[in-house]
């Protein structure tokens, strides 16, 4: 290492003037018949909604490819699929909603498949650094049972990473503290 890394600072309460954009929450056209909607709330240690949060997700396409232009497969795998969604609002109410495609399995350590999942970054006023977590899908029990990342997480806490099928998509709540505190990852 030659150059020391730049430290993180909080996104603050006013990120909405610079970071969200109208199509940001949609990693794919919501009219795409394969599109799924994931909605949820971000809750603090007092059970209060966190209105000034911003969430980002990064996920593979249904055939397990990331639309990463630098490498790993060349051009994007699915036309019109960004793989990335960002949701945060001026005047937010503590909830979020993103639209994406349900990812397929992607390779993990040693070539073992990972269960379908989305990588999540969470930012907010009062958070000096992003929190990283993952969204897995409760309706993929067989794949989840074999997932090498979930295997690192204490069994009693794994449910905090499972999006539950709900009306018109999935529900995924994030709890920053408390008995059901979401598992956050050190990557």
């Amino acid at each position, binding site marked *: *290492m030659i150059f*020391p*890394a730049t430290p993180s600072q909080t996104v603050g*309460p006013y990120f909405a003037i610079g970071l969200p954009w109208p199509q940001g929450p949609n990693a794919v056209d919501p009219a795409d018949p394969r599109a799924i909607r994931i909605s949820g709330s971000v809750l603090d240690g007092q059970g209060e909604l*966190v209105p000034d949060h911003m969430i980002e997700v990064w996920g593979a396409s249904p055939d397990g490819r990331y639309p990463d232009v630098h490498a790993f497969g060349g051009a994007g795998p699915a036309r019109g699929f960004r793989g990335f969604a960002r949701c945060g609002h001026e005047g937010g109410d503590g909830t979020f909603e993103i639209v994406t495609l349900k990812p397929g399995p992607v390779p993990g350590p040693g070539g073992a498949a990972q269960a379908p999942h989305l990588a999540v970054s969470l930012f907010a006023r009062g958070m000096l650094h992003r929190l990283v977590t993952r969204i897995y899908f409760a309706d993929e029990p067989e794949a989840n049972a074999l997932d090498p990342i979930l295997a690192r997480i204490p069994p009693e806490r794994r449910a905090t990473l499972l999006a539950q099928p709900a009306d018109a998509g999935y529900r995924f709540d994030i709890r920053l*503290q408390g008995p059901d505190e979401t598992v956050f990852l050190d990557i």
Partner: protein
Amino acid sequence: MSDVQEAPPRLWTPNDDTPTSYTREDRAVHPPMDDPGYKSTQYRHPKQPLVYVPQTLTEVTGPQLGAERVHGPLDADLTRQHEGMPVGQRLLLGGRVMDTEGKPLRGTLVEIWQANAAGRYRHRWDRWEAPLDPNFSGAGRCVTDDDGRFAFTTIRPGPYPWGNHHNAWRPAHIHFSLLGRAFAQRLVTQMYFPDDPFFDYDPIYNSIRDEQARRRLIARFDIHGTVPNWAQAWEFDIVLRGPGATPFEEAW
């Protein structure tokens, strides 16, 4: 070695210059999530330790949003987004985005947002009694060039009071958002100006425990880039995580 295991098929071949793993985050560089001096952290930090996981394809890939987010040069010139000029000292704000090995990050999106010269954000929740500037929105975007450089034209933001403690003022700052080229490199930070009188009292700046690390968030005045009778030049380099020791396939 008669019992050689067949290597798992490699689904994709990375480009030669694309890291397949990144260094772990340096805990001594970044602020803790729980900082008693910054009161809003109290109910917004996890109490459980983070779970250490290896990096996978998910973490070493990332979105490239430049084409979707940057529509023209005006996106990088915050002084020409309205009919008139905004109030304030005009700045040419440039710098390099690189990794910890000094390698430039090309074509990566840099997003900034800031208060106006009076310290007021154009945001409905900002109640500070200072005027909005009709000629200043306070947001900019650009994509780094082949040397990893970004360039914005903006005005120097003002400091502003906030409610964290008695007579709390935020040092003047500009927010930066970096995507890098991988999910692992994502960074949101703030850039400051030298000799700000509010540094000593600001829990956000001081949440970074290491003094050298804190100082890396301070831009430096660039006399050579300064344009006579027009604009001050300031430089702010940003260093994101660099390549790790082992490819992600072997990280376990």
